[in-house]
């Protein structure tokens, strides 16, 4: 059954041939330059990634960063949705929240990281930064989604005296979910990238950000590329998992 869930956009699909072609170009440029310190070849990156993958500290670093950034994401999602509900219900709350939301949106991540380091221990920095980046996106989109709920359907529910629980589940949620999904899609990548950037500045011990920083200091280009590849893979994987789960929840909720 086609539903509020979202069909894959085939136009934006990444093709294997295209990836292989780009890897070939990369390999060719690296071989032409012949200097690993400037540009390491994809083959060397894969070898380095394999070497890292068999060490325990590699997985510990991933677990450390992932748990904190994902924690910030989920916390921001929860609070963003609650704020959106209260703002929809009470105009005063929306007016009260407008200045901080605008400020967060307009402030560069680096400014927040440096400011926040004064108040928060480096270990918790990525949680907070990921939270801050995700919060306004969730809040704005969910509020827009609630506002766009079809008034005629709400009137129908009023006339038929549909219980509140059913109204929320079958009328509000189905209208808000496309907005929520689009917010997740944007915020997952942004939160993850901002969280890693915060770690590179705050240098919490054992994080991916610290590994990346160490690689930069020692001009260990293969390590830098390998860790960057890890960040990309986790970002894509995290987004896919969350969006797939969300689509499944939507499908389940649409059955009465």
């Amino acid at each position, binding site marked *: *059954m*086609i*539903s*509020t869930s979202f069909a894959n956009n085939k136009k934006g699909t990444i093709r294997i041939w295209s990836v292989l072609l780009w890897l070939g170009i990369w390999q060719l440029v690296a071989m032409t330059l012949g200097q690993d310190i400037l540009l390491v070849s994809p083959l060397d990156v894969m070898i380095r990634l394999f070497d890292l993958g068999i060490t325990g500290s590699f997985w510990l670093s991933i677990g450390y960063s992932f748990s904190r950034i994902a924690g910030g994401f989920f916390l921001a999602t929860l609070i963003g949705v609650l704020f959106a509900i209260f703002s929809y219900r009470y105009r005063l709350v929306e007016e009260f929240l407008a200045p901080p939301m605008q400020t967060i949106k307009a402030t560069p991540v680096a400014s927040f990281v440096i400011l926040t380091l004064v108040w928060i221990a480096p270990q918790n920095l990525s949680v907070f930064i990921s939270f801050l980046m995700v919060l306004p996106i969730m809040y704005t989109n969910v509020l827009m989604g609630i506002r766009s709920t079809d008034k*005629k*359907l709400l*009137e*129908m*529910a*009023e*006339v*038929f*005296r*549909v219980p509140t629980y*059913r109204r929320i589940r*079958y*009328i509000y949620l*189905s209208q808000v979910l496309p907005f929520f999904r689009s917010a997740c899609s944007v915020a997952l990548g942004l939160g993850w990238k901002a969280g890693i950037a915060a770690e590179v500045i705050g240098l919490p011990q054992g994080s991916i950000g610290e590994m990346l920083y160490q690689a930069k200091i020692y001009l260990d280009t293969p390590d830098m590329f390998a860790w960057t590849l890890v960040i990309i893979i986790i970002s894509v994987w995290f987004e896919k998992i969350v969006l797939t789960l969300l689509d499944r929840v939507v499908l389940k909720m*649409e*059955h*009465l």
Partner: protein
Amino acid sequence: MKNLQIQNISKRYGDTVVFDRFSSTLHSGEVNVLFGASGSGKTTLLRLIMGLEEADEGSLSSFDNLQLSAVFQEDRLCNNLSAFSNVKLVVEPSVSTEQIRAALGAVGLGDAIRKPARELSGGMRRRVALVRALLATYDLIILDEPFKGLDDLTKNQVIAYTVEATRGKTVILVTHDMEEADLMQAKHVINLEDIR
């Protein structure tokens, strides 16, 4: 249930007067036809009866606490939900799955029960909206052009089903087609043209 009284209601939108001390009676347990050209105030009157708007003056107190059901001018279906789920959304838990299936089948939607509303044609959506209204619990049912968009054969089948389902119930039927009103066995007409 007693007859329902509309007493001296007035309603204005800015400078436009829709009703000026309008009164009428709806006969309980019978089909009351609401008749009038576009812009005569039919929709406004229905919205007042449904409690979706308030009259500036006058009383609709006999409608207070009535459980209403309605086929709106637009279908007002949840597009993501199936035909079955759209009906299930509004009915009491005591209405069984079999009853809903049978009702949808009776209006020719037997094969479309699990189809999402967004995939249904205009006529099919109209019939889902009608079944939803007929299976809901109600004291008064409002049918705003419920057979709009149906071909003659389907319309006759659906009208026959509606007549049976609403027998002995208080109905407000909005239609421009007096033949439709006759088939629905309407006995009373409220002609909004008369108040102009």
